[in-house]
Structures are given as C-alpha cells and as structure tokens.
C-alpha cells in the first residue's frame, strides 16, 4: 500500500464570479521512503497540492488517502490529529514561536497528543540532537541563525515520529551553503529513518537532492520522473 494515494483530485476556488481551477484532476501515488521534489511556477497549483497533502485543506473532488485513511470524510479535529501524528511541516519562513526556546518549539506538537511533560523534554532534546543542535536547547529563535532555525523546525517535524515531512521551499530564505546543509539533513533523514520527504522548490540544484521530481503547470502534473542527478 502506498503512503499517499491521490486519485483524481481537483480544487476549485471561487474568486468573485470566476472559478479558479487550482488543481485539475491530479492522480499520484507516493510510497513510503520516497524523496519527492515538486517544482512549478507560482500559480501552478503546487502550494494547493501541498496544503491538501498536509491535511490543511480539502480537495473539491477526488480521493486522498494517507496510510490507507480516506481524509475526505474527516472533521476539523480529526484532520488536526492526523497532522499531529503523521505529518511534519517545514516552512520557508521557519514558523517558530518567538520568545520560546528551541526546546519548547520542538515540544509543541507533543502538547497536542497528551504526552506527559517529562517524556516531552527528553524526546524534544533527542530530536534537536538528531538535527545537530544539541546544546542550543534554551536559545530563542532570534538567537539562532537562519539555518539553525530551520533545523529547529525540522526537529519539530520529526518529534512525533511522523512518517511524512512536507517542506515548502525550506531553503528559500537561506544562503547556498546553509541550503546544502539543510538538504543534506533531509537526505540523511530520508535514508536513515526511512522518512518520506516531499519538498516544494523553485531551484533545480535543490530539487537535485531528491529521488523523484514532479512538475506542476496550471493545476496539472506535467512531468513525473526520477530526478536527473546533476
């Protein structure tokens, strides 16, 4: 069974009187352990696709099942529970809570699944260690560099042992050297922990770290092939 099964999904937004077809009957399967790069211009539908993958949004039509669970019929709170357990998010703008230490930022997902406080600290520290940030637990986001902040965000995505990480332009705010480091971290997590990584990017050299590349154009997948290594 594939991790992600997407069957003929469409997403239509109403903007005033005009219907915008953000996604137009997309069908895709992604297996556990894949490393997928999604490319496309802005407005190509890739962000909408990521939102649906991340259970933040629901398709207008079509079927999406994650680990065999059909997401379409789920309530707001059930979707929240799925995001909590199965999906880790990494954003372009890091999206860490300011005035909150790195450790507490990583603890955040565990606040919402009833884990006792003493377990949370240990697991958050372990996740920070995994992304190479041990010793920085008590630093606040404004005391960390961009690359370090993104590592905190990755640790947060890992901490609930989600099988899927969705990264929306994770290197968009980083310089080339730091971008490479972050991408190497994704590659390592993918290889060592068999975590499925799906990332959106504009840049070919970032996409080159993946194993499979999809291109979106006008709400459709126009190409889907193994990544060509540079």
């Amino acid at each position, binding site marked *: 069974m594939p991790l992600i099964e997407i069957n003929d999904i469409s997403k239509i937004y109403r903007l005033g009187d005009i219907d915008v077809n953000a996604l137009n009957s997309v069908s895709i399967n992604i297996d556990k352990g894949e490393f997928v790069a999604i490319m496309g211009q802005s407005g190509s539908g890739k962000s909408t696709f990521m*939102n649906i993958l*991340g259970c*933040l*949004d629901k398709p207008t039509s079509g079927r999406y099942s994650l680990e065999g669970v059909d997401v379409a019929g789920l309530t*707001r*709170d059930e979707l*929240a*529970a799925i*995001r*909590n*357990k199965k999906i880790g*998010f990494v*954003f372009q703008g890091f*999206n*860490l*809570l300011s*005035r*909150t230490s790195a450790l507490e930022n990583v603890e*955040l*997902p565990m*606040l*919402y*699944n*009833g884990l006792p*406080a003493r377990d949370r600290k240990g697991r958050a520290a372990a996740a920070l260690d995994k992304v190479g940030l041990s010793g920085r637990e008590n630093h606040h986001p404004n005391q960390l560099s961009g690359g370090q902040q993104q590592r905190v965000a990755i640790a*947060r995505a890992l901490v*609930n042992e989600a099988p899927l990480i969705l990264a929306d332009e994770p290197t968009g705010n980083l310089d080339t050297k730091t971008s490479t480091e972050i991408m190497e971290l994704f590659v390592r997590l993918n290889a060592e922990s068999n975590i499925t990584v799906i990332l959106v990017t504009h840049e070919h050299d970032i996409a080159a770290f993946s194993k499979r590349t999809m291109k979106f154009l006008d709400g459709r997948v126009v190409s889907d092939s193994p990544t060509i290594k540079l």
Partner: protein
Amino acid sequence: MINIPSTIKISVRALRVNKMRSALTMLGIIIGVGAVITMLAVGTGARQKIGEQIASMGSNLLIVLPGATTSGGARMGAGSQMTLSMGDAEAILKECPAVQTVAPNLGGVAQVISGNQNWSTGVTGTTPGMLVVRDWQISEGRSFTDDDVRGATKVCLLGQTVVENLFGSIYSIGQVVRIKNVPFTVIGVLDRKGQSPNGQDQDDTIWIPVTTAQKKIFGTTFPGMVRIVMVKARSTEDLPAAEEQIKELLRQRHRIGQKQDDDFTVRNLTQMMQAAEQSARIMALLLGSIAGVSLLVGGIGIMNIMLVSVTERTREIGIRMAVGAKTWDIRLQFLIEALILSLIGGGIGILFGVSGSQVLSTIAGWPTIVSPFSIFLAFSFSGVVGIFFGFYPAMKASLLDPIEALRYE
C-alpha cells in the same frame, strides 16, 4: 486529552509579553470587584449595626405611648397626655397571652448630686421587668425588687455614664446620690449598652422604682399614672398578636367607643428597625448596580484586548493548528488567558475592596464588614466575566483557517 498545565503556562507567558496591556485590561475588573467588595462590606456593616441596635433596644419590644391631647384645636402629639396607669401595665401582663413582660416607665431629667460631683441625667422610674424588656444586665450589685416597687424605697441603679461622671473610679455601690435633693442608695450598676438607634447615650440613665418616682421625684396629677409602658412579646412572631391584644385591652379599659380614636399608641420598634434595614438594602443594591456596570465595562475591555491578541497572534495560531492543535486546544488557550486576566484582576480588586472598606470605616466612620462570602462572590463573578467575555475571541481564534493563519503577516 487537553493539556491544562501547559495551556496555563502558554497563557501566562503570552500575558507577560504585554505586561502594561494586561495590567490596563485588568483595571476594569479591579475597579468592578473592588466596588462589589466595598458595597457588600458597607451593606453588611450597616445591617449588622442595625441588628445590634435592635438588640440593644431589647428584642420583641413594643412601646405603649399615651395618646395625643387636643388643646384648643391643636393636637399636642403622642405622649402629651397621661392616660396610662400602673393598672394598665399590670392588666397587659395578666391578660395578654402574647406578652412576656411589661415595664411601666415614668421619668424625666433631673439633677443628680453625689459628694462634690453633680450631673444632669435621665431618671426613669420603672419595675424590675425593665431589665428583661430591654435585655439589660446588672454588672455590679443587684437590681431592685418587686418589694422595692411596692414599698417605694429610695434605691437606684446607675448607668455606666452616670457612674463615670459622679464617681469616676470610686466604688459606687452603697453610696448615696441625691436626685432632686432626695437621697437614694446605689444598689447596682447597669451593664454598658452604648448608643441607641437615634444616637442617644443609653448609659446616661438612673433607674429607680416607679412608685418612688411617682411619689418623690415626678409628682403626678393622678396617682399611679405612668408615661409609657414597655412590653416584651413572647417572640417575634407574637409581636403582631401582642399589639392587637394590647390595643383591644386598653380600648376596653379606657372605655373607648367604636367610633372614637385610641387615646394611646402602640409602637413596634422591630418594625421600625426593619424599615431602616430595608433602606440599607436599597443602598447596597444601588452600589451593586454600579459595581455590575463596571464589571460589564471591565469584561468588554477583556474581550477587546483578547480580540486584538487573537489578531496579533494569528500566525502563532496557524502554527499550533498545523502541528495538531484541535479546536478546543486553541479555544481553551485563549479562554484561560481571559480567565487569568479576570481572576488576577479579581484578586487585586478584592485587595482594593478590603482596604477601601477599611478606609471608608476609618474616614467616613461607616461600619463595614468584609465577609468571606462577599470575597467568594466577587472572585467567582470575575471568573464568570472572564469566561463570558473571553468566549467570543477564543471562538474566533479556534475557527481560523490554518492556511490563512499561516500566511498572515
């Protein structure tokens, strides 16, 4: 499954980020709760003072006054005519089943001399029943007896104020005082009673047997007449019955026909006190509505700030939702924030209210009592305000679209 301790921690941190704003938001609640506490303290204090005054007058007390005379068309007011007699007093005691004790009174103001001291005070001729009627105790010596009344002996009981003015620290029992130049032996001292409801010093008094008063001090035109008769009913419930029985009896004894007016009046002091208590209650109600308005305004302040806070923290809410916060996780976070604001405000308000009541009783001389119940009431009220006015902003936060919230700048 909602993690309350962590939620509280998050809320406290959010409030501490904007200390000044949080403090100002609390101000409305502080003022409201402070007003509630002060209002209740003033109300309770007034009620207790009135209660004490009722008790000091003597409980279940009825006063029978003679009627008004009419002199050349001008009515002279209650008590201007002497229509009550010792016989009336005895008949009331004997024939009215709802009456426990009676005490006929005949008194006036007289100059009292002892040694080289003199003092002008109220001298009351009465019977031993007076002690029961007025719920008054003897602190030293003994009371006069029915034999003293029958024999018109020249003995007296002194009130505390009289003792202080005539004797100072000298032991007064057995000493002689001269009332209107008639020597009386002091046989007892009355307990301290304090002020009457209309501010009179009740301890500025001398009691003598009523017969002695009639014969030796306040000579009356008709022998055996008394100024007033004080009556103690068996219980509060018996008061109306006692009043009816006395009226019936006296109309008979005074031979008053069907269409004639009574030549006496029966006053129910407890009822008068209850009227005073009623007005204190109205005062408290008035203050209460002021407190209610300021709590309402305080609540709106909380709602306003919580709405601002939800808008400011839209992105934070989005992040929390993305990592799995459910509707009630977010709702509770903001509700707890509002609750903390209102409860801390309530706590500070209680401190202000308690010290405000103290200041009021010191400066204005109002009796104030802060009861634990009023503190409980004010605290729970501020909690209710927090939840009520925090609910809409919390609701709004929890229903944000996570995608929109994450994109919010």
